[in-house]
């Protein structure tokens, strides 16, 4: 460490505005990674103080107490105490406290002070505190705490000036280390009360605005109705903005591929560039708009304080299938795409609840399943009316969505009963004050999600796409070939091999073969089937009619159910690997989904055959 660099650790209770302060201090100069060996996000940034000194700031996970209950809280505890392997001991701890909520936050400040390290207290949200008529005698608080105290407003330009000046000066002396035992811990509350009595005067206990909003947002009837409207709007946005952009990007890469192809001699290299490289890039980057649109809403809802309200309304329902209220938003996102859904589980602190949510998320009917559903339903399900009003095709589509949800509930319920850790995991969730989301914080959050996806997954997905291309292209067809080239490739052999496994669920070798490239992206199943059956043109109607003559209704229904449950998306498996840092979880996901899909398809195929 150079003498002019100061390491600062930022700590505080959840909802103290710590991350907004971090964004204010470091702007875009942040590095997001994971702590060594765990899947807890590590955020570090730096900036140069007026004196020319470089300040390196670590944004530690928010916690209510150093008595850690979860992996992220353990990290905060260990880094503050200088006991986390691979992390340098911070030169200075900046403890952030919400000035409107000192009763809760001061206790943590006292806990941090007892570590015996240099500490500065940042009283954040001072503007809101003044607005609510809370008066804090800062000099007296500073004197009684024995710590430097500065006022900050993280969401205002220049709102961290006092903090920067303070940390740029002399490092304050550390308070003496104090023993940590049950008796002295319970005494902290008494100290907080004394401090509050001596330094803070407040007119009312809560903001009237929160009371009024919560009366509606948490109402048993209106609350659920508001939640439904919010979710409806999110989905409208994803399908109105995200999906068309994704299709546009996929199309653009296809177009570029074709134009590059003109410049190259025909052959394997041309095919690799056009189908492998450009096709793969189109798939990867095509995910981005959906991810960004979803996270725009998730981050806005989170910043505004609404997200915990949604979790409150749905906790009971989710708990009954072994999840938590916080699982709801990630699972709902998975209806657009499982990838942002799984990335969104970072908001679930409890590792067991988070893993359960990740394992279930791919069962939600994502948008990539729709082309496959549309094709097969259009080809095999007649248009006639059910009960005079419903269209049978629509009923089948609805049934497939329902199958995903019911399947997820069943899997959640089974997991709840077979897992070893059956202990009670707490909700204990703070519902913070409502606030206006700040553009900068949402923008930085969006940039981070996008960057994580692009950096960590592009390589994997591109690699797997090229592998799928390789399997479908080599070896090339013999000179006297009569069928399509793919029939002679490794994929062709694999498909013929797989048909022995898939015959009991009604898949012939052509379908089995089409499942192989579809592993790169579900929607390519349609194109793959077209290739295998030598159907020209892209018109889904034409392919649908061609398919209707090639296999039975039982096989078609079985294939629909297969796509509802099967681990048919390698990008999802890749993100599970990244987010859980474990191949074991990938194997579990793949294994249980394969078994579930196979069983369900088997039943559907056999029952349909008996009935038709």
């Amino acid at each position, binding site marked *: 460490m150079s003498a002019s660099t100061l390491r600062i650790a930022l700590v505080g209770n959840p909802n103290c505005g710590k991350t907004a302060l971090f964004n204010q201090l470091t702007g875009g100069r942040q590095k997001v990674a994971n702590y060594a060996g765990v899947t807890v996000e590590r955020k570090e940034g730096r900036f140069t103080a007026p004196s020319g000194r470089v300040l390196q700031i670590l944004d530690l996970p928010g916690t209510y107490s150093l*008595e850690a209950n979860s992996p992220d809280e353990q990290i905060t505890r260990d880094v503050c105490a200088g006991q986390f392997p691979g992390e340098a001991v911070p030169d200075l701890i900046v403890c952030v406290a919400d000035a409107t909520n*000192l*009763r809760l936050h001061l206790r943590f400040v006292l806990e941090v002070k007892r570590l015996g390290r240099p500490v500065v207290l940042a009283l954040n949200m001072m503007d809101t505190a003044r607005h609510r008529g809370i008066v804090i005698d800062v000099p007296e608080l500073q004197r009684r705490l024995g710590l430097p105290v500065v006022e900050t407003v993280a969401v205002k330009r220049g709102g961290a000036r006092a903090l920067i000046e303070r940390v740029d000066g002399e490092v304050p002396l550390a308070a003496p280390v104090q023993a940590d035992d049950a008796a002295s811990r319970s005494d902290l509350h008494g100290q907080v009360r004394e401090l509050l009595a001596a330094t803070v005067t407040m007119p009312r206990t809560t903001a009237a605005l929160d009371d009024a909003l919560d009366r509606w947002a948490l109402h048993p009837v209106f609350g659920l109705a508001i939640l439904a409207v919010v979710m409806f709007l999110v989905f409208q946005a994803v399908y109105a903005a995200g999906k068309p952009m994704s299709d546009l990007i996929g199309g653009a890469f296809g177009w570029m591929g074709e134009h590059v192809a003109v410049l190259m001699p025909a052959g394997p290299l041309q095919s690799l560039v056009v189908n492998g490289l450009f096709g793969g890039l189109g798939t990867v980057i095509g995910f981005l708009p959906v991810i960004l649109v979803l996270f725009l809403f998730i981050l806005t809802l989170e910043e505004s304080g609404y997200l915990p309200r949604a979790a409150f309304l749905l906790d009971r329902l989710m708990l009954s299938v072994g999840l938590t209220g916080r699982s709801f938003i990630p699972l709902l996102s998975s209806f657009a795409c499982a990838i942002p859904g799984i990335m969104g589980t970072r908001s679930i602190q409890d590792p067991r609840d988070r893993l359960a949510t990740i394992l279930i998320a791919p069962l939600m009917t994502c948008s990539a399943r729709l082309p496959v559903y549309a094709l097969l339903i259009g080809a095999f399900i007649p248009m006639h009316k059910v009960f005079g009003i419903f269209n049978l095709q629509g009923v089948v589509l609805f049934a497939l969505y329902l199958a995903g949800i019911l399947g997820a509930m069943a899997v959640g319920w089974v997991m709840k009963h077979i897992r070893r850790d059956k202990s*009670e995991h707490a*909700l*204990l969730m703070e*519902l913070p004050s409502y606030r206006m989301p700040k553009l900068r914080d949402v923008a930085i959050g969006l940039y981070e999600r996008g960057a994580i996806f692009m950096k960590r997954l592009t390589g994997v997905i591109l690699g797997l796409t090229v592998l799928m291309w390789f399997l479908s292209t080599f070896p090339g067809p013999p000179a006297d070939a009569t069928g399509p080239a793919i029939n002679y490739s490794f994929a062709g052999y694999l498909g013929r091999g797989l048909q022995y496994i898939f015959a009991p669920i009604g898949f012939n070798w052509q379908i089995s073969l089409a499942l192989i490239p579809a592993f790169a992206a579900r929607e390519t199943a349609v194109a793959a089937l077209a290739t295998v059956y030598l159907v020209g043109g892209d018109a889904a109607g034409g392919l649908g009619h061609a398919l209707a003559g090639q296999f039975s209704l039982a096989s078609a229904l079985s294939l629909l159910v297969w796509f509802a449950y099967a681990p048919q998306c390698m990008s999802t498996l890749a993100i599970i690997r990244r987010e859980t840092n474990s191949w074991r979880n990938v194997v579990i996901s793949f294994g249980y989904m394969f078994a579930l899909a196979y069983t369900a398809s088997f039943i559907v195929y056999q029952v349909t055959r008996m009935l038709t």
Partner: protein
Amino acid sequence: MRLSDLPKGTPAVVDGVHDAHVDDPIAQRLRDLGFVDGEPVRVVAVGPMGGDPVLIQIGFTRFALRRAEAARVSVRSEIVA
């Protein structure tokens, strides 16, 4: 009386938190969050399904607790001094 039995809107004062079993981390966390003797509390909302979870106002803060969590907290009715 247990906090989980407190009717919505009735002001009360915390007596203490009881461990549901030895080394109960949930009880410890409740104490850390300020559920200690003498703190005024109030149930401000209940969940739409089976009245679970409950939303507790304690000081300036609102915490959502499941009924099993709220049952660890014992309260007494506020004595008007």
